[in-house]
């Protein structure tokens, strides 16, 4: 698990490009929320990282929703001869228990995607709530919420997760989801707070305040839509964490070993010394999938960072030859 790369530190999401002279824009100032999603769609198509990430994500989504269309065997039935190699009948061979590995891989996608999306949404929700509240309530509220966030940030999460999961004697997916959500929102909360703070003094918010709008209205209707791109990035970050943390916990046996999931496949593979006994696929395949899904989230995240901050975009260097 590593830090989500490319998370904007003090991001400016209203689309101000970093240029030498801000170009004059004719006409009235546009309300920021209007164009955010449309811009995002266009940006995704233009950015190679974003398209790769999206394609990968869609593939996994499809596998999660319609596993039966891709894998014809049942993942749990130990109906075949064990330790078979790759063949057309068994695309990845069979496990030491005689189960079809390809089926396990495909069916396992659902568990991972559920964890990724549920934790992603929930953790992002908490992060937005706490981050924005801290920025807007200010004073003692901000102080205590920020302290809570920072403390949680510093306490090593994985050991904590291990201990909690250990006490719970390895719960099922629900326990995993709960535990990971409750502990992993702090990083994104911090960034959201930071951006919310920088937006506080923007003109359009001052205008809303002067109009007499109530604080809650301002927060929900004006601030949060402006932060859309960071919120999306936070979701991607949290989803990435969730996948990595959950798989790791399942790998060391703290998830329910009987669920169909990539992490549990790895657990069984490790238990059966797959690498050492000539069954490398058992360990390589699920790991590769975790890496691919993680890469999808990470690529999308990075692409969003480039989109939000044009200074980070790929630069094509040209030599000035005229004299």
């Amino acid at each position: 698990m590593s830090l989500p790369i490319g998370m904007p530190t003090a991001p400016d999401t209203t689309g101000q490009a970093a240029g030498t002279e801000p170009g004059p824009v004719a006409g009235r100032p546009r309300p920021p929320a209007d164009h955010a999603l449309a811009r995002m769609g266009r940006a995704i198509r233009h950015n190679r990282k974003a398209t790769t990430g999206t394609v990968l994500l869609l593939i996994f989504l499809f596998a999660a929703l319609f596993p039966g269309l891709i894998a014809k065997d049942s993942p749990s039935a130990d109906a075949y001869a064990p330790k078979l190699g790759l063949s057309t009948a068994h695309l990845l061979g069979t496990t030491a228990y005689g189960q079809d590995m390809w089926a396990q891989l495909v069916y396992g996608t659902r568990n991972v995607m559920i964890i990724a999306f549920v934790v992603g949404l929930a953790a992002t929700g908490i992060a937005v709530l706490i981050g924005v509240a801290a920025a807007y309530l200010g004073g003692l509220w901000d102080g205590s919420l920020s302290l809570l966030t920072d403390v949680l940030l510093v306490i090593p999460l994985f050991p904590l997760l291990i201990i909690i999961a250990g006490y719970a004697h390895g719960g099922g997916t629900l326990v995993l989801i709960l535990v990971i959500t409750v502990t992993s929102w702090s990083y994104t909360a911090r960034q959201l707070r930071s951006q919310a703070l920088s937006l506080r003094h923007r003109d359009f918010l001052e205008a809303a305040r002067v109009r007499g709008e109530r604080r809650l209205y301002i927060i929900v209707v004006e601030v949060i839509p402006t932060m859309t791109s960071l919120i999306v990035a936070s979701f991607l970050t949290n989803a990435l964490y969730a996948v990595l943390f959950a798989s790791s916990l399942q790998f060391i046996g703290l998830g329910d070993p009987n669920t169909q999931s990539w992490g549990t496949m790895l657990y069984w593979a490790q238990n059966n010394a797959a690498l050492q006994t000539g069954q490398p696929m058992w360990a390589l395949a699920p790991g590769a999938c975790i890496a691919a899904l993680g890469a999808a989230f990470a690529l999308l995240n990075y692409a969003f960072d480039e989109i939000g901050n044009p200074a980070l975009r790929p630069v094509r260097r040209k030599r000035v030859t005229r004299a």
Partner: protein
Amino acid sequence: MDRGTVRAVQDVSFDLDPGEFIGVVGESGCGKSTLLFAIAQLLVPPAEITGGSVTFQGRSLVGLTDRQLAAVRWKDLSVVMQSAMNALNPVKSIGAQFRDAMRAHGVTSKPEIAARSAEVLRMVGIDPVHLKSYPFQLSGGMRQRSMIAMAMLFTPDLVIMDEPTSALDVVAQRSLMVQIKELQERLGFAIIFVTHDMSLVSHFSDRLMVMYAGQVAEFGPTREVFDAPRHPYSIGLLEAFPSIRGPRLPLTGIPGSPPDLARPPAGCRFAPRCPKVMDECRTTSPALYQAGRVQVRCLLHSPDHGPDQNLRNGTPPPGSATGSVNTVAAGGGAAGSVATEEGSGDE
């Protein structure tokens, strides 16, 4: 977001004589800062020079690498930027930054460095004890002046200043301007001074250039441009600054806003806002016409319209480079430079 190529500066061309003070005024986004950076070869991708030339002391500067430019930089040509808080390295002391500049140009003896640093600081009225200070420890005015002192280290022939007074209060502004003018008279360097405050610079400059939407709107001796502006934009600018001692007049601004330089309008760029607009202004792009000792980019002063004209408009004399006039200044160790550019910035 991607709006296409923005032509930030177009068809700007002038000669600079040794010791001359040229003021460049215009509103935000008119291209004046881009012009400065282009001249000093300090543009950063995606901005780049797409045409024209910059000739300084007989050499062309465009296309040279940083290493090649280092010979000229700071010794003959220095730069003063708008905000010293941003232009000075926050983690190094003032003295250390002076030292870096001097060491980069071959001055290595410590006593020499110390002496010269103290000398330039005294020139701008700062106690040399502040060489040990960090930028954040100085007041705004002191920071700005130490930046000017740094620009004086090698008594260059040309100093380019990008709104050096804009970050200061009115009183500090004036005192800084006086100081700059005094240094100029004492040391004899030329200045290109960019600002949005026309009245401030008009007291000090020899010639005044008004820019609008990336082009030169009016250019000529300061007194002429200031006292009798010809371009409707310059007129509007001056009327927006009522005199403190004059009669009370209703405040008139210039309605509308500058055009989007990614999609410049056909015809004159000021037409949508011009109080004297004519039909042909919207279709014909005016060239720079001569009106007395001043150049004006306005159809009102074209040969077909205005009073007596020297028939020199913007067409280049034969044998020069693409686009516009291109002269090489005479030698004598002075700064003679021409910028004829179409700098374009990608937004």
